[in-house]
Structures are given as structure tokens and as C-alpha cells.
């Protein structure tokens, strides 16, 4: 059962090395290891669902002296999402990067990114989290700069510096906690940490560093250029997974480790920033000229919704009500992961076929790229939060919790944000449905279209109709 914990880190890392040494067979390698990783993620989910939270002490040293890998319902679900999204994006990338030389450079970094994501989700140790954060940051930057275009490199450099700043602040927090409690093990810390200046400043610093990495408004400035100029499969995982990883850490710190330290006021502050992100991000997405920028800004907005949950969860007493709301939060994160990844992949197809991604010039797309347009529309349904997408269920819980705790402001923000989302999605579709002749030779490759379609279908149908399982998993896996 716990073997899955090791496999999830060792498999992608080994694959990365092999892809580096054997570039010729790298693509096949990625597909196979991808399947293996997905299988391990499923095994882990199954294990967590039946046996509850799992942990593995590396090197056989007790956690504290050594490092422990941990997985509960939340991390297991996210790990499965990572596996599925990365796998779909890998299939897509195998067609997206035409030249063998491109793929030779791409695959090792890609698998290192995968390693970093899995390691971060599994890590149960503060300093180890710092290392995974850096691994994630560096691999993400290297991939974002891959096109070598000036804009991309510039964005990547800014992305790197911001990321380093973030991890430095995180590290200060770690140092402070070690000074105060002489432990790096999250589980131990959870028991010993007490309200006081050390905990407060540590939490502040770590949260701030992570907010930089998860691009919460107004710290989002670096995200749109970076996500907007990276290669399509990279943008997909940056938007869908990488920012989520940092968010996941915030969630862990606030709801688990520092649960007794966080105050409603602090949570409200996060909520306000989230609201800012929802409104500002959606508004910018509405005004964007290019599809990719639109998608990137919508990521800023969608992350905002996740932060709206903090004041609500803090206001709800621990118990079923809070668990249901938490499920809603996870549901939002999952749906956005799948939908946004699919959206970026679809946009990549449009960009490759028409040589641009200007929203104004999409006329006739619905005739020439029907499946791609359909994928974009499905992603849109999920981003707006219409049924039958999982977002609908998530937002339902968000509004419900807000009403139950009398925090009407968040209801208004959610409503406005959703309508703005509808505006920017149907702005695309409006142009796509236009009947002007589509000037470009559009023959989409199945290896590109199907991943996009399946990801968006997962977001809209699978999560929407089988959503109840998410709640049970979280419950069983706690």
C-alpha cells in the first residue's frame, strides 16, 4: 500500500533520467511511465480510501530525525488529478513538439516537474517542502522558457525571481519554526505548535511566500505573461497544477498545521484578496486580446474562488458542515485543474492551426475545428460554473456556506465573477460561431484534440455527475 508513495516520486524521477540518457525512446518512455504513475495514484487513492491516511518513513528513520511521506484523502485526490492531467498533456505534447530535438529537451524537464509535483503533495517535512518547491519552481521556469522567444524568456526570468523570493520567505518561516519547536515534521509540529509570535510570524512569512507562488491578487502580476507565452502543454500544467500545488500548501498550513493559530480576521484578509482576484482577474480576462492571456487571467480569477473559502471554513464549526464546504473547495480546485488544462491544450491547437490566438479573428472556427471548439465550450461551462460541471457543485457549497454564515459579500462576488466568466467565455464562442470563412487550413491531430476533449469532459461531466465520491473520499481518507 505504502509502496505507491515511493512509486509516485521514484517513477517520474527515474523516467526523467532515462529520458535524458535515451532521447530516442523518450516519448514511449513517458507514455509508459505516465501509465505507471497514474496506476500508482489510483492505488494510493484506493489505499487511502480503505485504510485512511498513509505515511512512509524514508530510510526507516522515525519522522523528525528522518523524513516521512504522507498522504490523506486530499493529497491522494490531487495526486490523481496531477497524474491524469500530466498524462493527457504528455500525449498532447508528443504531437505538439514536432522536432525530435525539441522533445529531447522537453521530456526530462517535464518529468522533473512531474516529480516535483508528486513530491510536494506527499512531503510531510517542512524543509523537504522547501526543496520540492524549488524543484517545482526551477523545472516550471525552464519549461516556460522553452520556446526561447524573447517574451517567453523575459516572463520566465521574472517568474523565477518571484518564485525564489517566495521560497526564501517560506524558508525563513521554516527556520523560525525549527528555532522555536526543534522539529521539521509537519505531524509533530501540528501537535506542539502554540499561538505566539513564532507561530504567527512563521505562518505569515510562509503564507506570503506561497501566495506569491500561487499568484493571489495582487501578487499575480507575473502569472499572465509566464502562462501566456509558454508552450501550450506547459501553460496547461502551470495553470492547472503548479499554482495549485502552492495553494495546497497554504490549505495544509491553515487548516491542519496551524489550525489553532489562524484567526478569522486573517482568513477574512485572504477572502478579500480572493474577491479581488475573482473580480480583477475576470475583468482582465474579459478585456484580453489573446486566448492564452484570457485563459491565464481566468486562472487568476479561479484561484480567487478557492481563497473565498477560507473565511467560510473558519466561520463553520469543525464537523459535517465544514467537511461539506471543504469538499466544495476541493471540487472547485479539481474542476479548474481539468478544465483549464483542457482549455490551454485546445487553445494550443487553435494557435498552431491559425498561427495566432487573437480572439477577434476566430470567425468560423466552429466549422473548421468543431471538436476543439467543443472542448473550449466545455471548459467554459466548467469555468463559469454551470451544470453539469463540478464547479457548479463547488460554487453551490461556496454560496451555501456563505449564506449559512451570513457572509453575503462572498455571495455577491461569486455571482458577479460567474457572470463575468460567462461574458469572457461566450465572447470567444460568439466569434467562433460567426459565419465568416475561416482562412486557415485546419486539420487537427487526434493526439492533440482528444486529450483536450477528455480533460474538459472530465471537468464537466465526470466530476459533475460522480462528484459525490469526492466527499466520501475526503471523509474516508482523513
Amino acid at each position, binding site marked *: 500500500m505504502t509502496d505507491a508513495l515511493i512509486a509516485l516520486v521514484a517513477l517520474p524521477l527515474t523516467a526523467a533520467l532515462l529520458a535524458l540518457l535515451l532521447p530516442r525512446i523518450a516519448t514511449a518512455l513517458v507514455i509508459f511511465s505516465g501509465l505507471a504513475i497514474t496506476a500508482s495514484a489510483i492505488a494510493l487513492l484506493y489505499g487511502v480510501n480503505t485504510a485512511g491516511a498513509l505515511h512512509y518513513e524514508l530510510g526507516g528513520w522515525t519522522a523528525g530525525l528522518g523524513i516521512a511521506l504522507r498522504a490523506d484523502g486530499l493529497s491522494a485526490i490531487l495526486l490523481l488529478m496531477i497524474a491524469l492531467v500530466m498524462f493527457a498533456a504528455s500525449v498532447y505534447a508528443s504531437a505538439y513538439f514536432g522536432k525530435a530535438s525539441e522533445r529531447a529537451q522537453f521530456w526530462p524537464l517535464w518529468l522533473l516537474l512531474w516529480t516535483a509535483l508528486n513530491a510536494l503533495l506527499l512531503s510531510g517535512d517542512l524543509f523537504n517542502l522547501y526543496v520540492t518547491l524549488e524543484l517545482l519552481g526551477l523545472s516550471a521556469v525552464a519549461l516556460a522558457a522553452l520556446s526561447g522567444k524573447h517574451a517567453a524568456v523575459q516572463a520566465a526570468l521574472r517568474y523565477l525571481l518571484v518564485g525564489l523570493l517566495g521560497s526564501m520567505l517560506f524558508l525563513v518561516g521554516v527556520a523560525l519554526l525549527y528555532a522555536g519547536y526543534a522539529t521539521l515534521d509537519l505531524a509533530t509540529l501540528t501537535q506542539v505548535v502554540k499561538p505566539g509570535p513564532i507561530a504567527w510570524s512563521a505562518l505569515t512569512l510562509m503564507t506570503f511566500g506561497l501566495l506569491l507562488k500561487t499568484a493571489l491578487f495582487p501578487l499575480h502580476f507575473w502569472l499572465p505573461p509566464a502562462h501566456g507565452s509558454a508552450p501550450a502543454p506547459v501553460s496547461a500544467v502551470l495553470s492547472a497544477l503548479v499554482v495549485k500545488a502552492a495553494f495546497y500548501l497554504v490549505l495544509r498550513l491553515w487548516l491542519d498545521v496551524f489550525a489553532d493559530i489562524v484567526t478569522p480576521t486573517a482568513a477574512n484578509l485572504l477572502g478579500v484578496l480572493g474577491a479581488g482576484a475573482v473580480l480583477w482577474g475576470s475583468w482582465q480576462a474579459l478585456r484580453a486580446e489573446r486566448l492564452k492571456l484570457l485563459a491565464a487571467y481566468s486562472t487568476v480569477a479561479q484561484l480567487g474562488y478557492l481563497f473565498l473559502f477560507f473565511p467560510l471554513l473558519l466561520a463553520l464549526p469543525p464537523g459535517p458542515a465544514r467537511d461539506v464546504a471543504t469538499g466544495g473547495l476541493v471540487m472547485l480546485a479539481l474542476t479548474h485543474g481539468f478544465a483549464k488544462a483542457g482549455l490551454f491544450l485546445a487553445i494550443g491547437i487553435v494557435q498552431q492551426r491559425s498561427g495566432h490566438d487573437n480572439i477577434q479573428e476566430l470567425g468560423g472556427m466552429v466549422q473548421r475545428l468543431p471538436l476543439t471548439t467543443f472542448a473550449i465550450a466545455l471548459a467554459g461551462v466548467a469555468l463559469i460554473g454551470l451544470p453539469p460541471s463540478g464547479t457548479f457543485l463547488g460554487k453551490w457549497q461556496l454560496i451555501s456556506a456563505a449564506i449559512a454564515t451570513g457572509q453575503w459579500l462572498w455571495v455577491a462576488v461569486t455571482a458577479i465573477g460567474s457572470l463575468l466568466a460567462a461574458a469572457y467565455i461566450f465572447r470567444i464562442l460568439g466569434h467562433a460561431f460567426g459565419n465568416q470563412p475561416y482562412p486557415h487550413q485546419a486539420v487537427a491531430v487526434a493526439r492533440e484534440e482528444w486529450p483536450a476533449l477528455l480533460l474538459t469532459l472530465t471537468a464537466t461531466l465526470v466530476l459533475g455527475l460522480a462528484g*459525490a465520491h469526492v466527499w466520501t473520499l475526503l471523509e474516508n481518507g482523513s
Partner: protein
Amino acid sequence: MNSATSLPLLVILSSLLPGLVIFFLPEGSHRLRTTLNLAGAFVKIFLVGVLIWGVFHGQSYETRWALAPGLDLVLHADKLSLLFVSLSSVLWLVTTIYAIGYLESSPHRSRFFGFFSLCVSATVGLALAGNLFTFVIFYELLTLATYPLVAHRGTPEAIRGARIYLTYTLSGGMLLLIGTVWLYAIVGQTSFVEGGVLSGLSSEYHTQLILIFALLIAGLGVKAALVPLHGWLPEAMVAPAPVSALLHAVAVVKAGAFGIVRVVYDVYGVTFASELGVLMALGIAAGITIVYGSVKALFQDSLKKRLAYSTVSQVSYIALGTAILGPIGTIGGIVHLVHQGIMKITLFFAAGNYAETLGIHKVSEMNGVGRRMPGTTLAFSIAALGMIGIPPVAGFISKWYLGLGAVEAGMAGWVLPVLILSSLLNAGYFLPILYRAWFRTPAAVWPDEHIPAARFETHGALLWPPIITAVLALAAGLFAAAPYSPLEWASLIAQREYGL
């Protein structure tokens, strides 16, 4: 899964699955597409028949599926839902035939019929929804499915109309959603129950319940085109005629009206609603809409626009009926759900025929069209007279019961004037059309005649649907007292609602 739990789902799938297949059909495969469409339509009617038979023999049908803790997707067949389901599935069949003829050689038919089927599936789901949560889901799905139909032509006007339609309906959907979540936050998960479920709540909740009612009605009012939320309806006229027919008679507008009926009768309970005082407000809104719509219709030269405004006014008869406390008013409102549908779809079919056959879009172009297209014009005339409320056409029945109900409920003071005034206005904007059509001499050349008069005045697929629906409209009036007639049915429902 036995029939009791699967049948409601199958009713939806009978149009959903063909729709999904049709999406992937090549443009050319005309025959296969048509077969799928009609097969789906007939299967649906058959399944609905089984449902009706079962329900009238005390069998209960329910499909239940948990989407999240405390949120079940429930499809449930009760008398009210069956009334709406049978209406929409019958009219869907007719409309499909009409649409096949109408879109004969136009592009992107696979896309069109795909969304067409999705649209009906959503409507049926809406009719079968067993609780507000489910209703909201299908309400939004209906919006999504209709957008591509309105935008179908892809012209700038079509895109614009679709955008306006979307702006209205999605905003409405959001209000409905918030209201529903709020309601759930208070009473938890509740199914639709005849007589309502809220009357038990203590009075401290009453203000909240009034606000929720306002949210729900505002959300539903957008699709039901209650003034001032009706703005999208005339704009959506850019859609092809079959779509307009669907929007006005079967799907969208009806969904709104049906939702209002559900909320008043099966969530709040009509008695409780009147205690809260919300019923009166609804009635006044309906009254204003009725008059306003008719007045606007008076001044439209574009035939479709005139019909659109007449829809605005006619649909509010349903809301008016629900607002009248007492079984008779209820009967009037519910029966009009059916009658308005049959009559209005006839009118739109006819209007579509004029446009397709002779290129007539304006009332002022209709001189003498009756001689060129007698069948169509006859159907149009029957439906129009029905709308005015002239016996023995169905519309008369609705208005009669509404009037009686108002008297019974002691609301005659303002309801009767509204009814009389609107009927006069109806006459005012329909009779001139009939006069032109039958008695004026035709113009030398029609604006754009591209279907020459052959054996029929136009394609059979275009001619028969309006005639069939017109006959139905007559029958619904003539045989109102017969068993299984809409009126009979409506009175059954009314009895249950009032626990008689």
C-alpha cells in the same frame, strides 16, 4: 434498475442520445439524421404514454442520483410534470418535422439538430425535475442548449441576439441559483410536494422566504418574459422559425412559466404564498405584463416581433392563473400552459411558412396571402382567434376559467378588466392581419417567392405541422370536457393542489 426508477431517465435519453449521435453525423447523411430525429420523438411519446398510464394507475416513477451530500438529482413523474412532458414531446415531434422541411438545404444541419435534441432533453428534464436543485440544473442546461440555436445563422445580428438572450437568461439563472441555495440553507433538501412544504416554518423565517420568493420569481421571470425581464424575447427572433416556435411554445418561455407554477404550488404552497402576500405581487406583475405585451404587439409591423410580444402577454396568463387563489383560477393558469403552447406554435409555423415560401416578414406584406396559401392562413386564423379568446378555440377555455377564478377569489375587481382589455388588444393586433390575409387583394409579386405553388401551397413538411397544431387547438377547445383533455387534467392537478 426497474422501470419505476429508470423510466423518467429514459424519457430524457430518448432525445439526448439521438442528439449526441447526430452531432457526429456528416452533413450529407440527411436520411439517417431524419430517421434518428423522428425515431427519438416517437419513442419519447411512447414512453410518456407509458408514464401517463402508470401514473393514472397509481404507479410512481422516480430516478434519484446523489451528486453531492444533500444534493440529489431527482427525476419524478407527477401529474403536473406529465402535463408539461406530454405537451413538449408532442410539440417536439411536430416541430422536428417542420424543422426538417424548413432547413431543407441550409448548412450545419447536424449541429442544429444536435442542439435541437439537447434543448428538448433539457426541457423534459425540467418538466420531470423532482426538486428545485434538479430544476436549476436543467434550467441552466436549457440556456446552454438554446444559445447555439439562436446563434445558428452566424450573422452579426444572430450573434448579437444570442448574446442578449444569454445575458438575460444567465443572470436570471444566477438569481434562481442563489434563491435556491438560500432555500436549501433554511429547509435543507426538499422535493416538490403538492400543497407545498414551507407552510410549517415558523414566522421568523417569513421575511427571508419573501426575499427568496422574489429571487426565484425574478430568476424564472426572465425566461417567462415577465416585464421588465422580457427584453431578450424580441431580440431572439433572429433565430430560425422552428427555434422561435420551440422557444415560445415548448421550451424556454414555458420553462419559466412552469417554474413559477412549481414554486408557487409545490414549494411554497398556494395558500401559504397568499398568506405571505407574495401572490398578489406576482399577480400584479403578470397583469402589467399582459397589458404591456399586447400594447407593444399592436405597434409591430414585423410579424415575428408582433408574435413575440403577444407571447410576452399570453404567457403571463399562466402566472396570473397561479396568482389567483382558488382551484378555478389554478385550472385556468395550468390549462393555458398547454393551450398557449399549441396556439402559439401554430402561429410561428405559419409565420415561418410565409417567410420561407413568399419571403413575407412584415404584416404589411400579407395582403391576400390567404388565397395563395389557404391552408397556412387557415391554421393561422384559428390560432389567432384562439389567442383572442373566441370560442370554441382553446384560448377561450383558459380565459373563461381565469375570469371565473378571479370572481371566485374576489379579485374580479382588477383581473376582469385586465382580461377584457388584453382580449380587446389581442383582437386589435390579430384581426387586421386576418383581414389583410383574406380580404385584401394580393400584391402583384411577393417579396421573395422561392417555393412555387405546386400540389401544395408549400412543402408538405411545412404545411402539415401548422394544420395539425391548429386542429389540436380546436380539439382542445371543443372536447375540453372529454377525459384526458388538458382541461380535465388541469382540474385533477388543481384538486390535488388544494387537497380537494
